[in-house]
């Protein structure tokens, strides 16, 4: 039975724009009911994808930095020096100290210790994306881990993004936004990444009668906190919920920062950090702790509403309110519309998604269903330019590529400007084509297309057939002709992977 062109076009949009790239045969399978195929993927995950199962726990990721510091101390003591000799002067300098005699560099040790961890996690994320039968769900995981961002670019959180992603984005991708916001805000990775563990209420008991200064203790993950740090409070409002024009002021940021003073790691967690024995598979939420001694006493007013001092409940109350704020609905809807419809998000779609968000109190499955049922994501194929990671993933979904190790993957994605888990800032990777279509980046994608095609070509594929198989009717005449006229299968496949249709989604 022949499948109509419209059905195949929608299948291509479902597989390539909503999913992570079609595998041969996908389009024919999806074409019967592309919306149903997508909605089925809104069900939460029943178990972790196989490549992710062996990754370290959140506790292990959290301890990694401390254990590295401990191993460093052993080496320092072996050299007959004292840890005091390398006491850090400022937080930024924490990893930059050194041990003499043997040409040992702290920075070198740090990179050697953590890069393999990162490469393993990167490969697991990549293998999951390439092999998953639920590519739309997986795209949503990537989307949310680029909304709630913890980056390896900060040394203290270098090991944490993979387990943060699992505990936050993967656990709640199609759940409730409020739950994801809580999972993120209480996660040790976020509390360290945006410095809340260093934030102390200026009138808190801790600030008024600080415990006696100790010699620097390697079991601490940060230097002794001295006062208020607004970083997390600001980014929650600006990047996670309301958006920069969401209607809050600097005074709101300061008040909110005071509200979440004391949000940090559980005391038992701090004790566990330096121990070698592993007490089970603890997730982010299990490691959260509230320290009343660091909490700023008193009521706080945020966006016109006063929250009495109820300890940790005060922060929970603020988060509950901002999670269902209209600005948050619009901010989230705008980002989703940009990701799934167009760089310049259609206002009608944004309004529809925001309304659904508000009506359902942030039920993300309901919001995504509304997106799937909207006309805008379906009305014009290939409007979005693939970012480097999704581009590489989609080449592998189209067919077996060259053998790619974790280190090679790291080099290739780094060269294209998107090393996963390594966002330059808490605002995440950009989602518009202009940021990814730089001359150097496009050239490297072309280089990659040619290199990957060499691997694909050994499978004796017919490039023209593969092209129509993965692109369906979105394959344009110019590309089809160029592929058909190629001098070899490898060149035909290179033209397919480098083609505008394959570079876009």
């Amino acid at each position, binding site marked *: 039975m022949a499948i109509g062109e419209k059905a195949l076009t929608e299948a291509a949009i479902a597989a390539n724009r909503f999913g992570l790239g079609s595998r041969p045969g996908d389009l024919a399978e999806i074409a019967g009911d592309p919306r149903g195929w997508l909605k089925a993927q809104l069900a939460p995950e029943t178990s972790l994808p196989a490549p992710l199962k062996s990754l370290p726990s959140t506790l292990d990721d959290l301890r990694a930095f401390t254990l590295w510091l401990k191993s460093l101390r052993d080496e320092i003591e072996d050299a007959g020096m004292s840890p005091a000799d390398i006491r850090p002067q400022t937080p930024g300098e924490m990893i930059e100290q050194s041990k003499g005699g043997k040409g040992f560099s702290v920075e070198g040790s740090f990179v050697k210790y953590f890069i393999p961890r990162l490469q393993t996690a990167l490969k697991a994320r990549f293998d999951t994306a390439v092999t998953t039968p639920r590519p739309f769900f997986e795209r949503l995981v990537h989307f949310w881990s680029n909304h709630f961002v913890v980056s390896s670019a900060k040394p203290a959180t270098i090991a944490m993004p993979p387990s943060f992603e699992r505990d936050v984005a993967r656990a709640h991708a199609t759940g409730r936004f409020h739950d994801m916001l809580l999972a993120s805000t209480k996660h040790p990775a976020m509390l360290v990444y945006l410095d809340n563990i260093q934030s102390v209420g200026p009138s808190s008991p801790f600030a008024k009668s600080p415990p006696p200064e100790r010699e620097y203790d390697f079991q601490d993950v940060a230097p002794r906190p001295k006062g208020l740090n607004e970083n997390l409070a600001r980014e929650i409002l600006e990047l996670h919920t309301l958006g920069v024009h969401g209607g809050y002021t600097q005074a709101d940021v300061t008040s909110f920062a005071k509200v979440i003073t004391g949000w940090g790691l559980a005391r038992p967690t701090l004790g566990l950090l330096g121990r070698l024995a592993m007490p089970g598979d603890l997730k982010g939420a299990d490691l959260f702790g509230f320290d009343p001694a660091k909490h700023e006493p008193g009521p706080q007013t945020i966006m016109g509403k006063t929250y009495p001092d109820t300890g940790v409940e005060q922060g929970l109350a603020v988060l509950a309110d901002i999670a269902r704020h209209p600005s948050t609905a619009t901010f989230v809807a705008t980002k989703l519309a940009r990701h799934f419809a167009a760089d310049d998000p259609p206002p009608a779609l944004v309004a529809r998604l925001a309304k659904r968000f508000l009506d359902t109190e942030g039920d993300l499955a309901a919001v995504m269903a509304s997106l799937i049922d909207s006309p805008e994501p379906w009305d014009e194929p290939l409007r979005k330019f693939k970012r480097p990671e999704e581009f590489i993933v989609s080449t592998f979904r189209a067919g077996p590529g060259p053998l790619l190790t974790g280190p090679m993957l790291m080099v290739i994605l780094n*060269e294209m400007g998107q090393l996963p888990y390594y966002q330059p800032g808490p605002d995440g990777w950009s989602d518009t084509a202009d940021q990814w279509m730089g001359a150097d980046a496009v050239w490297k994608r072309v280089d990659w297309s040619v290199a990957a095609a060499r691997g694909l070509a050994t499978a004796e594929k017919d490039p023209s057939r593969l092209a129509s198989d993965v692109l369906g009717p979105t394959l344009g005449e110019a590309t089809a002709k160029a592929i058909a006229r190629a001098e070899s299968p490898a060149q035909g496949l290179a033209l397919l992977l480098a083609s505008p249709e394959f570079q876009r989604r």
Partner: protein
Amino acid sequence: MGTILSRRMSLGLLGGLVGVAGLPGLALASAATRKRFVLVILRGGMDGLSAAPPYGDPDYVTARAGLAIPGPGEAGGALKLDGTFGLAPELAYAHALYGAKELLLVHAAATPYRDRSHFDGQNLLENGTAKPYGASDGWVNRALAGLPPAATAGAKDLGVALASRMPLALTGSAPVTNWSPTVAPPPTDDTLARIGALYDEADPMLADAFRKAEAANAMAGGNRPDGDPYQSLARAAARFLLAEEGPRVAVLELGGWDTHARQLGAYSALGRNLATLDLGLKLLKEGLGPVWNETIVVALSEFGRTVAMNGSGGSDHGTGGIVLLAGGALAGGRVLADWPGLKPKDLYESRDLRTTTDARAVIKGILADHMGIAEAHLARTVFPDSADAKPVAGLVRPA
């Protein structure tokens, strides 16, 4: 630290995939005599007291015990600039430039950054405001918007970064490009021609990026590495600046200055890095030929290092350092320093060389007198919050 992966590592990791072949450099017509500006970002916190030792300061040997470089004339001694300052022996080419009045040393200089984080310090150095993350674009890009029309005529992109990722310093709305050698095996010319033709026919945005990359490769003389990573980039920078339609400004990056251990010695990281910087100046001058006379290079780091040696034969994050200026358009052959001294009481927070010259004042002087950018544009747009850093006059050789 800069980026997590150095190009050297990249080349090593891709091992088997890579067939590194040098392409012959293209012979490029010498461009008209327009002004050129090169920024070299020295990432990691360069030790200015080692690069340019104040050997004549009576406190130098004591304050830098363990790190002090012998005076001029002694074995391994500093290369004399004047009665107070010298250059590290690795900077022999720079020293020759000084003799030719094509090098100028500014000492005890720094950006306004006074803390000690690489990340924040580099962000501030590049964003051009007085605080980390104070702007989301870079001062070099903002400066391009103030170039006089005559300086930009014929140029497609006004600036180029020799880097795989656009550094913040050059990020912004003025047209710029970036280039770096590719480590993957090269596609054949025929395949590239077909891909280019397909883009021309089917996708104007991709076509534009592709043609830009092609033009960049032509200016750089191919897209294969040409020598060591930094050498390759320095050679390419010269080719870009020479090209008729090429950029007027180039940004280079050289990392590895975070020398916490074993600074001294022939094979120390610091010694190697200084030699690399020195060779880079040579490659730029040789590559630019006559255009060197229209060029000024500014090299600086996010901060300097501690005066005293640390426990491991290195130095830790400090404050004051140096700004190194080079180029045929420079009124060089001198040292600019309001020297704060090295006695314990003279030091910033009892540990760092005190900053007496704002690096922005030096850069503003170059951008105004050499590149012809209006002072109002410099004060308002390029370096906002820099009212106290008046442009330093007289840095440029009179025409």
